[in-house]
């Protein structure tokens, strides 16, 4: 059974090496808190592996409240959930792994 990875820190504060060592290709990712900046991570300062297109190979969700708080607009190919959706994901996946 697959895991839900909860990514709560900005791309520059998240260890991609650690993350990628644990995430399985069939796992699900949810970006919350400063993690939602992953939605805008096509900057030169971010490791290529952390850029949004890279994560497209995984099933990804962004937390609506945290996107809105930070003024980040969702683009069309992003899946956005509110906290109810977050709870639903945590129930659907067998376990969660938090990254903070």
């Amino acid at each position, binding site marked *: 059974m697959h895991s839900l990875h909860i990514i709560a820190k900005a791309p520059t504060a998240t260890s991609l090496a650690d993350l990628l060592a644990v995430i399985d290709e069939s796992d699900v990712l949810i970006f919350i808190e400063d993690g939602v900046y992953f939605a805008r991570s096509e900057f030169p300062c971010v490791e290529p592996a952390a850029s949004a297109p890279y994560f497209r190979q995984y099933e990804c969700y962004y937390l609506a*409240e945290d996107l809105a708080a930070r003024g980040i607009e969702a683009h069309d190919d*992003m899946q956005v959930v*509110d906290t*109810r959706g977050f709870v639903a994901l945590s129930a659907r996946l067998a376990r969660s792994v938090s990254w903070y």
Partner: protein
Amino acid sequence: MVAYVIDTPEPITVLRYVLLINAAPQSGEAANSALRFAGTLLEMGHHIERLFFYGDGVINASNLTVMPQDETNLPAVWNALIEENGLSSVVCVSSAIRRGIVDSAEARRHELPASSCYTSSEIGGLGQLIEALSNCDRTLSFG
């Protein structure tokens, strides 16, 4: 397509959750995320087996925090959530005493002048985290 809510019916299977809260209300958004998550869990009909406050998270049980009127007093909201829903809430004793969070028993034990912990939470040990893990379906950490 932007879907704002995953369209799920009310959960058929009630799951038992343990939430590990590892950040102080003042140190970032995590404590607030945890609180929102906890409230939503209950709304959706799930069960909270135990809240476990660990590390800086123990500050969430302080009954001595004061906030300006236009800011949220997170410990007070936690207290209300815990009381209204009769939740089991445990504050890790070794984290707590280091940060000045004590109930009256710990205050006595360490010869301190006052207690500083909401009585809705219990000062306890990591054994209570381990025990709760054995009795739950999901564990989520916030920090």
